[in-house]
């Protein structure tokens, strides 16, 4: 029962975002600000985890492929496909749910508790449109870019790890990279990226915007928003894989 109430509230929040902006210039400014917060703010962590994900995938795939019948260049193929299809979109999104999601939820939660949202409402501003919409649109723009970057860095990290650990030379890796490449995988990866971006930004906005109580609840709801986003990401990940692959 409670689930349906919450889900209804969530849908109403999304519907409430659509209204004519009071002043498009201010909305644009807020959107740009959010792009910087979301994109640049989480760039370092995305770079670090992507490099390591690629590296670990190379080493572990080589460890599991013991048969002499399999060409070493296959390792590169596996690294490429797992980065693009699963590791970059899903793992990076789960990390971003923690980084971006908790930031959005606590920012909005703080604004709610300290009555800043009420103050905006009193001025005649649609706070759902002004505070939530720019965050979701910025996430839809920046998170897929981060995920694309992550896939590239992951593959590069794998290539480097293979070279450094002596598992396979970069020229063999490059051959493998070009074997059986299917652009469809990139499409699936992008579908995932957009879905996850929407989940992260809208779920955390919901939990932040509707906080009630005191400072303690801000922390609690930002944790809840991360947990819920992570579960939804995994569920959607499975659904996309089942439907599109």
């Amino acid at each position, binding site marked *: 029962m409670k689930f349906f109430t919450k889900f209804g509230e969530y849908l109403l929040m999304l519907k409430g975002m659509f*209204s004519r902006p009071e*002043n498009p210039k201010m909305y644009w400014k807020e959107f740009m600000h959010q792009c910087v917060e979301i994109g640049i703010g989480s760039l370092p962590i995305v770079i670090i985890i992507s490099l390591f994900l690629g590296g670990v995938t190379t080493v572990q795939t080589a460890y599991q492929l013991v048969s002499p019948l399999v060409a070493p260049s296959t390792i590169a193929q596996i690294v490429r496909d797992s980065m693009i299809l699963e590791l970059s979109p899903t793992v990076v999104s789960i990390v971003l749910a923690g980084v971006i999601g908790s930031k959005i939820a606590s920012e909005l939660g703080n*604004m709610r508790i300290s*009555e*800043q949202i*009420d103050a905006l*409402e*009193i001025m*005649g501003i649609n706070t759902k449109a002004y505070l939530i919409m720019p965050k979701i649109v910025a996430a839809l723009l920046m998170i897929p870019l981060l995920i694309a970057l992550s896939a590239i860095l992951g593959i590069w990290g794998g290539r480097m790890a293979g070279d450094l650990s002596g598992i396979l030379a970069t020229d063999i890796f490059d051959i493998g990279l070009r074997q059986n490449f299917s652009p469809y995988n990139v499409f699936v990866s992008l579908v995932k990226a957009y879905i996850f971006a929407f989940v992260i930004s809208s779920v955390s906005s919901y939990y932040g915007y509707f906080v009630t109580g005191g400072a303690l609840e801000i922390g609690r709801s930002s944790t809840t928003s991360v947990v819920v986003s992570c579960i939804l990401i995994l569920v959607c990940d499975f659904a996309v894989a089942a439907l599109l692959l």
Partner: protein
Amino acid sequence: MIEIKNLKKSFAEKTILHDVSLTMDTGKCNLIIGSSGSGKTVLMKCLVGLFAPDNGSILYDDLDMISMSVPERKELRQKIGMLFQGSALFDSMTVEQNIKFPLDMFTNIRHREKMKKVNEVLDRVNLKGANNKFPSEISGGMKKRVGIARSIVLNPKYLFCDEPNSGLDPQTSLLIDELIHDITHEYNMTTVINTHDMNSVMGMGDKVIYMYMGQKQWEGNNKELFYAKDEKLAEFIFATDFMREAKELHLQHGNKEQV
């Protein structure tokens, strides 16, 4: 003029406002007094539409706020200024940006004119030079004053102040009272103020409404307070020896004048 008819509000079975009916006059400071927890803030939030009342109507110059469409309500709100009990400043913005925000959002005037307006209101609340401080860097009283500056920067028709001078020293408090009183008369605004400060009540109570346990217990002005027969009100106003002595003196003085 704001007319409130049969307003009722409850939170989860607990009734906070029981059938409140009153009018707030234009060009006057309408003071709502009452002890802590008597429902002043809830009443004010119902008035501005932050809480939806269970029952009753709220008329802003004959326009019913509750049955308004969303765009109509937005339009009305641009004529409303409100100071919150906790100031509610945007903490990611400096003092200057806070005050400039309504101008940025709702006007198309040039930057230079905006800055002129910002500095003008900052000056009025005695905060010249605090432009680039963040809310976390200023005292509670200063936050209150920035909150007032932000709420009056668009020259609202209706001004709501929730305890404008709690936490301020008597001098600044007086300054804020005078400011609110002056702009109310200058721009013929409808001003509603929640307060428990007796100095404010005596100083600018063009109209005083006493709330007791979610009901309007008494209504009048600061002159009539001394002669009010209501026991609850007398207990609230003349709680201190100082106020009782002031009353005695006032009554003696008043009687002499009459003789």
